[in-house]
């Protein structure tokens, strides 16, 4: 560490240039942090579903609805341990921009199906008692200032009530939390009772959005899924059963490969950064040829000169990366207000620092090599 002042001073030899370069790296890592958090968040929310959980939807489209009567038939399929169902409500709270999912679910089985959710006993009891009761994610409650006991209005955009009006109301009976970060992200929803939904809606009675099944032996999940679909083959409403994970991944493909888009954007950003930072490092070393020659004259070895230049590059990249990732982490809560459950996973920090190290090496190595090969006699007589 005794070399630190030497490295640090070299880094700031041309302040404006260093600041400009650093800002570029900061911005790149800010972008990296944000986009990777989204990417990791997405891939995680698709990993969470246990392999033992199956998902049954209409064969041709996720938006097809399925008869309620399938419930008992699915339940009696060998290997199926538990069945539940859910329907997409697609309502709006106060403002179009307040986007969060609302699901009408079978309240008797849904929490058992999603046992990674945390709901306290009082809430479970009250939900069983109160037909218009709803459970809401902790983050959502915080964001909108909801408390247990509040009655909240949701405007339907798909499902009007019998009287033709769109204003549904739910009583908040409890909060939903998750056992880990992924479940927490998944818990940012509003769950209300299907029996209330089915009774109060104008049309669609007796139909649900999708079924969920838990199988007794996860190894048999594939054959159980096939057995379920076989039951409804050649019926007017054929089904397609997948593991929840596979479904989600298919869903992702439909949305477009966001991951790929994110990685290509970041790839382009860092490619540009490579040239910019590389040029800065190259220029900085070129200007310091006589100084580097003097260090060698004093007795600094070729390898230590190489190490000095590489350290300088590392310092530049890592400081800027820390700043960029720090700002991203700092901004994350604000972003999470729009996208509940979004947070900065530690692995994004680790990845970011890895990328910073790699960047430092790639841009630092050519000038460091040049500094190492520098011939003292030549460099000194060039003055």
């Amino acid at each position, binding site marked *: 560490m005794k070399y630190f*002042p*030497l490295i640090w001073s070299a880094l700031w030899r041309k302040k404006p240039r260093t600041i400009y370069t650093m800002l570029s790296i900061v911005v790149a890592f800010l972008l990296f942090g944000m986009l990777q958090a989204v990417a990791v968040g997405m891939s995680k929310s698709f990993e969470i579903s246990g392999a033992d959980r199956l998902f049954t939807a209409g064969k041709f489209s996720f938006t097809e609805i399925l008869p309620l009567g399938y419930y008992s038939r699915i339940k009696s399929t060998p290997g199926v341990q538990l069945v539940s169902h859910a329907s997409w409500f697609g309502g709006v709270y106060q403002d179009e921009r307040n986007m969060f999912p609302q699901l009408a679910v079978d309240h008797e089985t849904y929490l058992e199906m999603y046992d990674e959710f945390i709901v306290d006993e009082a809430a479970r009891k009250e939900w069983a008692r109160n037909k218009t009761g709803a459970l809401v994610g902790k983050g959502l409650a915080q964001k909108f200032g909801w408390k247990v006991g509040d009655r909240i209005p949701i405007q339907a955009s798909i499902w009007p009530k019998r009287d033709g009006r769109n204003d549904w109301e739910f009583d908040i009976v409890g909060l939903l939390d998750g056992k880990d970060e992924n479940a927490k992200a998944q818990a940012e929803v509003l769950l209300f009772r299907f029996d209330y939904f089915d009774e109060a809606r104008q049309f669609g009675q007796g139909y649900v959005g999708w079924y969920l099944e838990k199988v007794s032996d996860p190894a048999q999940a594939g054959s159980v899924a096939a057995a379920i679909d076989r039951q409804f083959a050649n019926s007017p409403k054929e089904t397609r059963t997948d593991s929840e994970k596979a479904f989600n991944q298919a869903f992702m493909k439909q949305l477009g490969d966001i991951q790929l888009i994110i990685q290509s954007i970041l790839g382009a950003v860092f490619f540009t950064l490579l040239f910019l930072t590389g040029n800065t490092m190259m220029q900085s070393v070129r200007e310091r040829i006589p100084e580097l020659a*003097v260090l060698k004259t*004093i007795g600094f*070895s070729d390898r230590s000169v190489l190490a000095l230049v590489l350290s300088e590059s590392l310092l530049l990249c890592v400081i800027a990366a820390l700043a960029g990732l720090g700002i991203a982490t700092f901004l994350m809560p604000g972003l999470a207000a729009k996208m509940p459950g979004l947070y900065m996973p530690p692995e994004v920090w680790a990845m970011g620092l890895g990328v910073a190290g790699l960047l430092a090496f790639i841009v630092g190595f050519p000038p460091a090599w040049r500094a190492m090969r520098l011939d003292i006699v030549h460099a000194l007589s060039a003055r």
Partner: protein
Amino acid sequence: MGEAIVSLRGVLKHYTRGKQTVEVLESLDLDIARGDFLALMGPSGSGKTTLLNLIGGLDRPSAGSVSVAGERIDQLSSGQLAQWRARHIGFVFQFYNLMPMLNAERNVELPLLLTRLPAADRLRRVRVALEIVGLAERGGHKPSELSGGQAQRVAIARALVADPTLLVCDEPTGDLDRKTADEILHLLQTLNREYGKTIVMVTHDPKAAEFATHQLHMDKGRIGTGEPL
């Protein structure tokens, strides 16, 4: 002449530029005694810097032997030479060659970074070296805040700080006015007389050479007769 601290035998140095070979030094023999202050004079291009680089271990001869303090440095690898320079040689250049971003103390400290001395000892020795060159008060100043004479004193302190066997100076006063030059030369003289430093100094200036204990004249890569003071 006392014990020779520098001893060159049959030294040859040529540079090759493409197919052309430039003979710079031709079968040169030279002994420098411990405690000597040698002024090396001669016209431009006569090979003074080349000779100095060989003595200081910055370059290796094409043929012949260079011994300094009993060690054959012409046989050392470039990595070994770097280590050797750190222990034995202090360099002073015409244009000071200080690190512009480091203050005087940090500049003087540079050679000590290569030793195992702890920070406190390094600082103590830096202060002593700055004291010797008369710049104890200027430790916190950057080179840009120093006059030419002061910058050269810092450079001399840097050359001294690791207590080298030999001080090697290439036109140390070439960039200074008469008065400042004389001050620097007095300083070198003091280092030689009171601290017993062996000094080899290249200079164009006959007045500067008068400060030395011996003078040597070079011409076209050969050493003429030394004219004693």
